[in-house]
């Protein structure tokens, strides 16, 4: 905690800052690019950079889960949705909104607030990274001891979401005149 100063930077810290810049830049491009699919790709870069940041903070389990879930599944599904509906090659100006300046103002304000608050709170605080603090085992113990109820509750949430998705999307074979089929 002590004995460290910001003047003696190690390779990890330099990498952390550089990757952070990549994440920030990719995030900015995500919201400013005028091409839908490119926005999704920049989002991939931003999420991947976040995973690298986790890795640099010794949270390897979370890092690879981030890649697996966000990069490997969420954005792929997003692309899937884009391609199923409309995924024009080239800019799509109609996807732009008049509220761009307003949204930018809100985003800048929120970012400024959060950055100021966090920077102000932690100032020169130094947290030494302990290898193994982010291992699968540490995560498992945390999840299945202290946070077991929220964890199980999340599975309930997923179940509810699953039921909801089926309710919203399922079609019965449309056979007008037949009231009740025996079963699905």
């Amino acid at each position: 905690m002590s004995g460290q100063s910001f003047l003696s930077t190690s390779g990890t810290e330099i990498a952390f800052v550089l990757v952070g810049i990549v994440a920030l830049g990719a995030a900015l491009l995500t919201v400013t690019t005028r091409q839908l699919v490119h926005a999704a790709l920049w989002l991939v870069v931003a999420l991947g950079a976040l995973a690298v940041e986790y890795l640099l903070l010794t949270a390897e389990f979370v890092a690879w889960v981030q890649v697996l879930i966000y990069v490997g599944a969420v954005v792929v599904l997003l692309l899937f949705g884009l391609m199923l509906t409309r995924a024009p090659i080239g800019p799509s100006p109609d996807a732009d909104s008049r509220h761009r300046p307003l949204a930018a103002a809100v985003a800048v304000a929120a970012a400024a607030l959060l950055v100021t608050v966090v920077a102000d709170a932690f100032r020169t605080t130094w947290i030494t990274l302990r290898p193994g603090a982010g291992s699968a085992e540490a995560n498992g113990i945390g999840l299945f001891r202290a946070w077991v109820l929220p964890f199980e509750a999340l599975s309930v949430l997923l179940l509810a979401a699953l039921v909801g998705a089926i309710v919203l999307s399922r079609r019965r074979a449309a056979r007008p005149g037949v009231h009740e089929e025996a079963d699905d």
Partner: protein
Amino acid sequence: MTVMHAQVLAAGDVSGFGHDPWWIMLIKAVAIVVFLMVSVIWAIVWERKVVGWMQLRIGPNRTGPWGLLQSFADAMKMMLKEDLVVKNADKFVLVLAPIVAVVPSFMAWAVIPFGPEVSMFGHRTALQLTDLPVGLLYILAVTSVGIYGFVLSGWASGSTYPLLGGLRSSAQMISYEIAMGLSFAAVFLFSGSMSTSQIVAAQAHTWYVALLPVSFLVYVIAMVGETNRAPFDLPEAEGELVSGYSTEYSSMKFGTFMLAEYINMYTVSAVCATLFLGGWRAPAPITTIWAGANSGWFPLIWFVIKLQIGLFFFIWLRGTLPRFRYDQFMKLGWKVLIPVSLVWLVLVAVVRAMKNEGWQFGRIALWTVGGVLVLLILALVWDAVFRRKPAGGGEPAPEPAFDPMAGGFPVPPLPGQALPPVPRRAPRAQRRAAAARAAEAETGGTDTDDGDGSPSPANAGARSAATTSTTGKGAERDDR
């Protein structure tokens, strides 16, 4: 204190890694890449040869002895071809896509154990580039990034069939990744680790293919789905989508996709070997005869043999099985593989929990087998008592008339069914006679140029054939 113990274990997990000098790491990395490239070159010839034999052909035999240099010829051809970029494409993404496809397939090999610790230029080092405590998670994550290559190539081509191929590819890989992950989970439960080297170490006595046969089967099916290979090669189904996502690709851009596909095949085979087939360990009879089979550089041989067996399996499938229909394929993934994996995983977890409680093997076997049997009997009773019998007692329901477009797809007739008659042209003799009569009428000096004016018998015949065919169809519709 058990927790303490586990932490010590976890800390000791990968202690053998990360201490290599940089040049050994470099040698290993280069060696892996070289190994993969050589393997791919071999695989292409091998696949063509094997498929040739299965189709009673010889296969390539012109280039080099026994056709062995065929891959080089193919590669030269590919490099010399014109590199087309279609006008409508998103050029940057079009070029990016093959790279995105191929890089992760190389990356996954970083944690594959090729063998035990060996001596390399005076250093003791494991035959594995590096190891992670979450190694398999890393493999899953990295291969899931590879999906982007296929999805983006489909999109960036700016044309319909590639887009459909890309869509199929993403849906397919995401669906089968779930079943794959579930089959991994059973392995984790038994090995107590996600690190590849630990999983191999845990199979010192029994391979998981014997302990977890259901997981193995699910994995093997899922791995074929993940690699887009026959019979699950729907994203590039040439009968439906021309060539799927790679339709608009040519030259080395196409070659890169091929490279990715073959490396992916090797990757999933390597994972299969590592997880279920004892990794680099020699099979049982060899180890009993030869104690040194599992030490030194020899395990490399077993590992490569296992990889080649995996590859042969892929080729065998391609040579024998027809392609799945897309909906059947999805049904298999979601309605068979995932539920089966889930039930199996619960069973494995129960056994594992009993074992952790210190139960004896016999008792565990009794309870699990007994439990499964009870469930089966209950299901049987349920079927016998509550399942509705088909109406009409013993009388079998009359066969429904054969519908060649059942469910909106053209289907072949089953044994005992016959295709409905296809409307045909009149026999040639009749047509010839009709034509002759028409010509006669024209030359016969009638002052009308309009040949259609008079109803010629040929026309009448054709028309009557048409009417009979339509009425035939109408009758068939009524039947339905």
